[in-house]
């Protein structure tokens, strides 16, 4: 049993390292357009995997990614001129972490539905707050972002993603990963087995958020000009959920595949049918949910703690 596990994990670790190496060399052998496209895909993958880190095991559907992304974007826009890039990203991550801890402490003790509702509107709330602040105090509507070359953006995004994957993997394999799973299966039973449910959920939510903030900070440098409406876009909340649901959440490979598919699809639709791409996304989504329910039972059963159908390898 152990030998088989070792060979299997060697295989997956090996392919992961290989893939990262291939990607790291992309700017050398790939066209600039490809680098930009792959950066986008890695961004989606990062958002999706971060989302899965929390919402996967617990079944609490967070609709907040756009909010944390937005914080990252605004941090980059506000501090990009004054601080070096690594520091900007750290500050963005810290800011998102703080917001997540506050939101978590307030809403994670309640029913899962209220958490989803709260996070759903969070992006619009932040948008309104930032707009109010900018109009009232700084008297600006939008901001210009420090421009960074595409190759640097690619590497930073890749680095964030790799750190995220390592963190996500370590978390899942650790005792906290087991606790999160137990919380997802039966919160009350987990509490009675000694798991501090609220603390666990809040901290995990925070970890998930900080990566979203970091992602936002680096991706902001692609847009030269941002305003509250650009930075806080509900689309970035819906997409990770869809990508995770389509890709499957039992492993982290699933969300990455989901992100890749959607990233490519978005690129295709945007270039071929720029006025129809939301429409097509929507149709694909509705058709998939109606006719391919098995791909969705994972998330959907978790929604109300009905129990997951995928089995799990466990220590």
């Amino acid at each position: 049993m152990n030998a088989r596990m070792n060979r299997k994990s060697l295989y997956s670790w090996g392919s992961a390292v290989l893939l990262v190496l291939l990607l790291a060399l992309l700017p050398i052998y790939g066209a600039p357009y490809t680098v930009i496209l792959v950066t986008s895909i890695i961004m989606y993958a990062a958002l999706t995997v971060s989302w899965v880190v929390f919402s996967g095991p617990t079944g609490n559907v967070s609709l907040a990614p756009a909010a944390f992304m937005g914080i990252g974007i605004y941090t980059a826009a506000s501090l990009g001129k004054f601080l070096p890039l690594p520091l900007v990203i750290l500050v963005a991550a810290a800011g998102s972490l703080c917001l997540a801890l506050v939101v978590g402490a307030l809403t994670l003790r309640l029913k899962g539905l209220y958490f989803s509702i709260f996070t759903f509107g969070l992006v619009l709330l932040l948008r309104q707050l930032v707009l109010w602040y900018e109009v009232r105090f700084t008297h600006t509507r939008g901001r210009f972002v420090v421009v960074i070359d595409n190759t640097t953006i690619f590497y930073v995004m890749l680095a964030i993603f790799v750190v995220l994957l390592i963190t996500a993997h370590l978390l899942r394999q650790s005792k906290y990963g087991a606790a999160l799973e137990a919380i997802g299966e039966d919160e009350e039973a987990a509490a009675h087995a000694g798991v501090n449910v609220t603390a666990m959920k809040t901290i995990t939510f925070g970890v998930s958020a900080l990566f979203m903030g970091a992602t936002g900070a680096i991706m902001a440098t692609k847009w030269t000009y941002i305003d509250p409406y650009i930075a806080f876009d509900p689309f970035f909340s819906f997409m990770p959920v869809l990508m995770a649901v389509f890709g499957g959440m039992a492993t982290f490979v699933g969300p990455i595949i989901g992100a890749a598919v959607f990233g490519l699809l978005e690129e295709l639709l945007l270039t071929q049918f720029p006025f129809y791409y939301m429409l097509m996304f929507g149709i694909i989504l509705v058709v998939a949910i109606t006719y391919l329910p098995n791909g969705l039972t994972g998330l959907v059963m978790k929604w109300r703690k009905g129990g997951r159908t995928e089995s799990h390898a466990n220590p």
Partner: protein
Amino acid sequence: MRILEGKKLTKFFGGLAAVSEVDFGVDQGEIVGLIGPNGAGKTTLFNLISGAIIPDSGVLEFKGQKLTGLKAHLVCRAGVARTFQSVRIFPNMSVIGNVSLGGVFGTKTGMSSPAAVVAAEELLDFVGLAGASTTRAGDLTLAHQKRLEVARALATQPEVMLLDELIAGLNLTEAGEVMGLITRIRGRGITILMIEHVMKAIMSICNRIIVLHHGEKIAEGSPAEITSNETVIKIYLGK
């Protein structure tokens, strides 16, 4: 020594008192039975003790320290564990995963995962589930799931265990085995408070019995005293 004590515990749901001014005490090493018709408030009382819900008034004490208002995970870590009426194991985790979770998070000082796994294996053996460690918990039979729940509770190294209808739904052989298990748990120095409807079990293994009816304690005493108590007989045989 009085290890668990409740004074004037009261809990309202809407306008109805599920538990009303209940006083009870459990001494170390006892097996105390909690009986009463359906809706008497037995599980509610368990929920109050385990921290699942907070009493509207009244006090709970465990070994002299206040238990009232503590959250469930803290009650567990203090040394009071429970099982649930509707067996609540983690169906998609492995059997050993279920039990070791209790060891890692539920003991007073916590355990490392490897140590918890070792302890879990001993407990699986104790409850009679050795050999099923890697089975998916949801695939077990009901009887085995109940034992798994007991093992998980034991993994938290409790001094008091609240058992909620462990014997209900089992056939005669299984019931006998569970009764043996309960006695062996007490043999490990754990005090037991058990809700049960199966009278034969209650009468044979309990030192003392507490009777609840409409949220109030209406009788308390040894099995012999309870079986001859007129009020108790009346509520069980109907008016």
